[in-house]
Every structure is written in structure tokens, then in C-alpha cells.
């Protein structure tokens, strides 16, 4: 037995080693598979969009499509007004939403008494869970009539209504991520600032926010992605007119709204033009993300 034990152990060890190896390999494969789901999805979506939208690009011409100002399917497919509408509504939402979100995040992380933070934080988190069709309905019933009264316009379904709804919709994303990154800062930053004689407010704006910049920018990037990709709420409040909006108080149609509204009926080159609208949207999102990534990296060094 004793003499055999050595012999017995070594195959066991060998087996354990091989078993371990097998488990390791399995998890390795699992990690790779999981990681590739996102990439493969993106590649498939891009390939699908390009193959479907190619006909429209070929027949209408990239310039006519991207810079054309008349959307008259199945003859003219100019989506320039929609590009402008998407950009303006997203920019407006960021200009209004991000400062509010940032101040809320600072308030929650630094200033709010615990009982108040316990009310505000769940409220913000709940805001993230509200479906966009409800935001749209809220906009249609509250914001649209309010704009009619405040600005004395015949119809409140305007770019401004879209901006306000989008600004509210991006709040939870930006607030949650900014607050998390503010809380993740080493306490030494704040203590150091205070020890040097800086006031609390001064230390927030000059030390904490700059130090948490990377996280805050990530939140802003996700907020922008949500705003530019939002469809349902925008269809309900922005009026969807395919003409170039002359001001914030005129209706407009975003790229996403264009796809969602007409896809169910479109055939032939009209359908293809809607896919090419998707391509333009994809390009914009890639450019936006790349831009923010660049800013983030540049500032970090």
C-alpha cells in the first residue's frame, strides 16, 4: 500500500492537473465568447446596415443623401434636416441636462444630508427605469401645451420640447455615474484641499470635479448616446416634420424617428434609404465616442 501510494497519488495529481486545466480552458473560452458577443453584434449590425443601405447610397448618391434637404420618398432622400435635428436636440439636451446632473451628483456625494440623499437618490434611479414611451406621453401632455402657452406658438411639438424631454431622460445616467466617480476619489484629495484652507465649495469645483473628470465624461458620453438614440419619446413630442427647422420653436424629425416611423411601410429604395439613415446615425455615434475617448485620454496625460 505504502509503496503503491506514490504511484496512486501521481495519476491523481495528474488527473487533477488535467481537470484544472480543462476548467481553466473552459473559463478562458467562456470569457472570450462573452467578450466577443458585443463585438460580433456590432459587426453584424454594421454589416447588415451597410448591405441594406448600400442601394440607396448608390442610387441617390452619398452627397445627395447626406446633404440633401428634401425628403420625398421614393424620389428624393435628403436627410440633412434630420441630421441637424438629431445634433441640435442632443446638444440642447446635454447643455441643459449635464449641468443639472453634475450639480445633483455633487449634492448627493458631498453636500446632501443623509435623509435628503435617501430621497433624491432612489428618485433618480427610478427615473432611469421609466420607459421612454412614458416620457413621451409626459412630454405630449405637459411640456408641449406648456410651450404653446409660454411661447405663443400654434403647436408645441417642437425641437425645444424634444430637448427638454431628452434632458430629463439623460439625467439618471449622468447623475449616477458622476456620483459614483466622485465617491470613488481618495479622501485625501478633499482633506488636502480643506487643509490648505480651501472652502468646501472651492474644493468641490477646483479639486473634486476635475479629479473625477474621466468618470463624469463617461457619464456624459452615455447620456449623449441615450439622447441621440432615443426614438419613441422624440416621435411623440417633436412633430416629425421632415423640413429643416428654422428655430427651436419649429417641429423637426430626428434620424431615429425617421427610421422608426417609416420602416413598417417602406419598400424598395425607400427602405434602403431608411437603412442608410441608420448608417449615418452609426457613423455619428462612432465619431462622438471616438471624440470623447480622445478628449478623455488627452486630458488624463
Amino acid at each position, binding site marked *: 500500500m505504502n509503496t503503491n501510494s506514490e504511484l496512486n497519488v501521481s495519476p491523481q495529481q495528474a488527473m487533477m492537473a488535467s481537470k484544472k486545466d480543462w476548467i481553466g480552458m473552459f473559463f478562458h473560452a467562456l470569457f472570450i465568447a462573452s467578450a466577443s458577443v458585443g463585438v460580433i453584434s456590432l459587426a453584424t449590425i454594421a454589416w447588415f446596415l451597410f448591405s441594406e443601405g448600400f442601394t440607396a447610397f448608390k442610387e441617390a448618391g452619398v452627397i445627395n443623401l447626406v446633404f440633401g434637404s428634401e425628403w420625398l420618398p421614393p*424620389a428624393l432622400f435628403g436627410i440633412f434636416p434630420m441630421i441637424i435635428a438629431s445634433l441640435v436636440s442632443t446638444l440642447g439636451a446635454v447643455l441643459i441636462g449635464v449641468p443639472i446632473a453634475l450639480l445633483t451628483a455633487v449634492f448627493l456625494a458631498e453636500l446632501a444630508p443623509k435623509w435628503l440623499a435617501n430621497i433624491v437618490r432612489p428618485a433618480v434611479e427610478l427615473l432611469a427605469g421609466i420607459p421612454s414611451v412614458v416620457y413621451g406621453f409626459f412630454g405630449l*401632455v405637459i411640456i*408641449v401645451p406648456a410651450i404653446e402657452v409660454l411661447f405663443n406658438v400654434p403647436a408645441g411639438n417642437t425641437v425645444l420640447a424634444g430637448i427638454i424631454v431628452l434632458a430629463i431622460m439623460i439625467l439618471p445616467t449622468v447623475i449616477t455615474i458622476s456620483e459614483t466617480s466622485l465617491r470613488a476619489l481618495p479622501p485625501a484629495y478633499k482633506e488636502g484641499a480643506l487643509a490648505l484652507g480651501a472652502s468646501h465649495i472651492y474644493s468641490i469645483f477646483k479639486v473634486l470635479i476635475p479629479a473625477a473628470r474621466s468618470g463624469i465624461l463617461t457619464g456624459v458620453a452615455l447620456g449623449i448616446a441615450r439622447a441621440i438614440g432615443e426614438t419613441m419619446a422624440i416621435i411623440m413630442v417633436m412633430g*416629425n416634420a421632415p423640413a429643416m427647422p428654422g428655430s427651436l420653436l419649429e417641429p423637426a424629425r430626428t434620424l431615429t424617428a425617421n427610421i422608426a416611423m417609416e420602416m413598417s411601410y417602406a419598400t424598395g429604395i*425607400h427602405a434602403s434609404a431608411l437603412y442608410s439613415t441608420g448608417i449615418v446615425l452609426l457613423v455619428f455615434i462612432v465619431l462622438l465616442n471616438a471624440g470623447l475617448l480622445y478628449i478623455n485620454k488627452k486630458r488624463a496625460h
Partner: protein
Amino acid sequence: MRKVITLITTIALFASPLSFANNSVSVSGSTSVSNVVEVLAETYQKNTNNRVDVQGMGSSAGIIAATNGTSMLGMSSRVLRANELTPFLEQTVIAKDGIAIVINESNPVSDLTLSEVNKIYRNKITNWKQVGGDDKKIVVVTREASSGTREAFERIVGLKKSVNGIQVTNISPSALVGNGNGMVKTLVSNNQNAISFISLGSVDDSTLKVLKINGVVSSDENIVSGEYQIARPFIFVFNKNVPKEAHDFMQYVLSDEGQQIVEEQGYIRVK
């Protein structure tokens, strides 16, 4: 080898419903028509145990599906275009639908002429006082491009123009666009200055006012007699040698019971 098996299984899984669906009737096309055909299909299934699958995806798609045999019956809410007619394609009108011109109930206007409607949608008339209403700007609401209702409305009211030889809409691009009858209803019932058009069968809201056109009320009799002009046919399109099941269903739709349902759904019977 495993790949081949997986592939075969997948194909078999996808194909199996097809083999079961042999004796069921497939109907696809106009979303407006599918509203009433879904109800018809439901009662037909109860009565005969024959399956009817209804899919709303737009008139153009329905006509294509009937032409290439993807569906046994295609539904269209507009007259077929010349390039859609093929020698082996037949059509039957199963119902008629009026298109109601609607405004907010608080608007004093109650009557417009067809040419006034035309001018309003081309932005030539922009204020309600030009047609006998209050001094308020008109908010024009339309449906999304290539919706069957919009297509029929444009044809009847003469809102088409030609660009590069292709017929396109002449409705002002600054008009608000609602996707679906429901959205249009919400927009008009919430805006005192709005005007729009919806399928007569879906007018049920007391906050909307249906306008007389050229002095004619959009009643069933006036639509059947042709006096109310803004109306369209609901059509079944099908291949000449379509299976018997499809003919049976079509016969049911045109029967007294079927036409009764058509009427109950707010559309106009043809028999």
C-alpha cells in the same frame, strides 16, 4: 459533422411551421385593412376551425406578397398602381372606408371645400380665419410617408407632384407627422388649431370634430353614393390559382355575416 447536424436541425425547426400551415390561410398587407380582417379571421376560425394568419405591414408589401405567393391574400387600402397589375392577379373589394377630415372640437369651423383642404395641406392657407374660423394659425398634421391612409388622401385631394418622373407627396414638409391613427387623434384632440385626416372607422373620440367636405357629411350613404369624395376601397389581392381555403375565407368576408362585422367595425359594407 456536428455543424451539419445543427444546420439541418435549425432548418427543420424553421421549416416545420410551414408544413403545418398548409391548410391555413395567410393574409398580409395594409394595416388599416388588417384591423377589420383580424376580427373577421377570429370569428371565421371559431366557426370553421380553419386558421387564418393576418399580418399588417402596409398595402405595398401586401400586394407584393400576393404577387410572389408569400401570402395567399394581400390586403390593400388603395387602388393598385399600373405597375402592380399583373395578368394573373385578381382583386375583390371587401369594404369601403371614408377618410374623415378632423379638427379639434373647440374649433368653430365645420365645413371645408376639397380645394380648401388642398390649399391647407400645401401651406397656401395658413390661418383659420381664411376659411371662416378664428384668427389662429393652422397646425397641419399628416401621416408618415407611404401610409395607406395618407396615400389615399393625397390622391383624392390632389396632393401629388412629380419629381424626376416619380409621383411624390405635395404636402408641406413643415406639417407635423403622426405615426398611426392613434397618434394623429392625440395630436388633434390636444391642439385647438390642428387639422388632420384619419380613417372614418377609427373616429370614436368626442374631442374630435369631423368636417363636412363640400357641404357633404361623411356618412355611409354619402360614401356609397360617391357624394362624399374622400373614400377608398379595402381590397383583397390574390393570385388566380390561389388555394380553395383562401377562396372560402374571401367568400365568408363577402357573406352577410362577414359584411355585418365590417359594418360593426365602422367600415362600409359592399354587399
